[in-house]
């Protein structure tokens, strides 16, 4: 490990001096994960809200399933998406394997259950509080969903950020379906994996520092927002 410190500082200067290739990788990571989280939100929020508001047989089982999906191993998700998108798989004709779209799909599968489960929790709590008042105002169950989603917005942004955190830090799934192809599907986490396997630990660690920086920033936002959401929630509880 001799010279590790100097190696690390040269790697950091590569980052700080805005090495174009490196920033392209960081940008692709952000792009893929932001896109994945947006799609997950479009699916997960209505599903979570519906589960919170609707009453139907099998609802509890669905909720347990959804919570279990939150902890689904990324590698398994990667494998499933690979089998789906492979040329010998059912969606092979779409030619999506080894593209950023494939990585987005894998991350959507990973993140949607998180957003749906957190949305259900928050909306169910709020629905309990609002239920009589909304019925008194003549708001139907279905019509109450957008009201509840909007009023839970702070907590929902927290859910989005939690999903983003999982997406951006994930390596197992995206390396399988993205292939870690230079300039095409190489993101921060797969670059870290590659540089580690080349024994370039300092560069890997420097990239890890960016990832940690993003994670810290996201978590700071989460804790600020959830504090505010909590204050609003506790006020009249």
């Amino acid at each position, binding site marked *: *490990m001799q010279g590790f410190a100097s190696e690390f500082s040269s790697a950091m200067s590569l980052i700080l001096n805005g090495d174009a290739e490196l920033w392209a990788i960081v*940008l*692709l990571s952000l*792009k893929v994960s*932001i*896109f994945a989280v*947006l799609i997950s*939100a*479009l699916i997960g929020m209505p599903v979570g809200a519906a589960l919170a508001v609707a009453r139907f047989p099998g609802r509890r089982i669905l909720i347990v399933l959804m919570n279990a999906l939150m902890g689904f191993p990324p590698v398994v998700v990667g494998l499933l998406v*690979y089998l789906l998108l*492979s*040329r*010998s*798989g059912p969606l*092979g*004709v779409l*030619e999506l*394997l*080894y593209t*950023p779209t494939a990585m987005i799909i894998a991350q959507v599968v990973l993140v949607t259950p998180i957003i749906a489960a957190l949305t259900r929790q928050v909306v169910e709590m709020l629905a309990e509080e609002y239920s009589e008042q909304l019925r008194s105002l003549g708001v139907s169950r279905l019509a109450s969903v957008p009201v509840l989603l*909007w009023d839970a*917005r702070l907590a*929902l942004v927290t859910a989005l950020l939690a999903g983003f955190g999982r997406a951006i830090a994930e390596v197992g799934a995206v390396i399988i379906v993205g*292939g*870690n*192809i*230079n300039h*095409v599907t190489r993101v921060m986490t797969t670059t870290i994996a*590659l540089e*580690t*396997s*080349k*024994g*370039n*630990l300092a560069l890997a660690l420097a990239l890890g520092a960016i990832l940690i920086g993003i994670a810290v920033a996201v978590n700071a936002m989460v804790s600020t927002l959830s504090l505010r959401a909590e204050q609003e929630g506790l006020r009249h509880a």
Partner: protein
Amino acid sequence: MIRIFIRAAFFAVGLTAASANAEEPFIVVQSTTSTQNSGLLDYILPGFEAETGIDVRVVAVGTGQAIRNAINGDGDVLLVHSRPAEEQFVDDGWGVERFDVMYNDFVLVGPKSDPAKVRGGMDIVEALVAVSGAEAPFASRGDDSGTHKAEMRLWDWADADPTAASGTWYRETGSGMGATLNVASGMGAYVLTDRATWQSFGNRGDLEVLVEGDPRLFNQYGIILVNPDKHPQVRAAAGQRFIDWLIGPDGQAAIASYKLDGEQLFFPNAE
């Protein structure tokens, strides 16, 4: 919030559109970590891309996985190093034809202290017998890669079955060459590696080359076009063009001219 969503969506779409030079023709090459980690492909591919306008997208995994991915049709060209498996691939109809491309060699590296006393030997089989006799730590890929297959052949010749000792002195990492070198470096173990990956590996620690030069350490790379009869989506024309270039004079010269620390890593030998 809806407005924020829409704006973010536009932002994301804009980003994708901006970076998607999607209409550029490309091929996907299923290859091994050694060709990528050594830096060879990064060195030679720009020449081909400039000449033909075809973008070469390399998925670098172990030979075993590369072949399985190619069988699934998830690649247009296969560039790996395990001759028996490659011939099987073509015989089963998954590939069109196999061509020799280049070779490099394997080396046995180990800790400077060399507990099995193999330093300087020219006979790899003898060295492995010594390692297993001393029950000195040995890190194996254990991932069905070309290097792993080569290692298992050598153990076979040494009449030893190290997998019986798996978990004691014999450690199977189940990961790529670089990751396995990291493990060996961390625990001071012997390890069989291709010279290219070793040459470009940045975390050698206490390890050094102990045995090299045995003809049985010869490591041949082959290239195969994935059979478009099996997978109609295979970009056969562009893939064939890449193969022709790599085994032709330009590609062969490019391979020969790649040097790391002044040392040539791959030796072109296409017919």
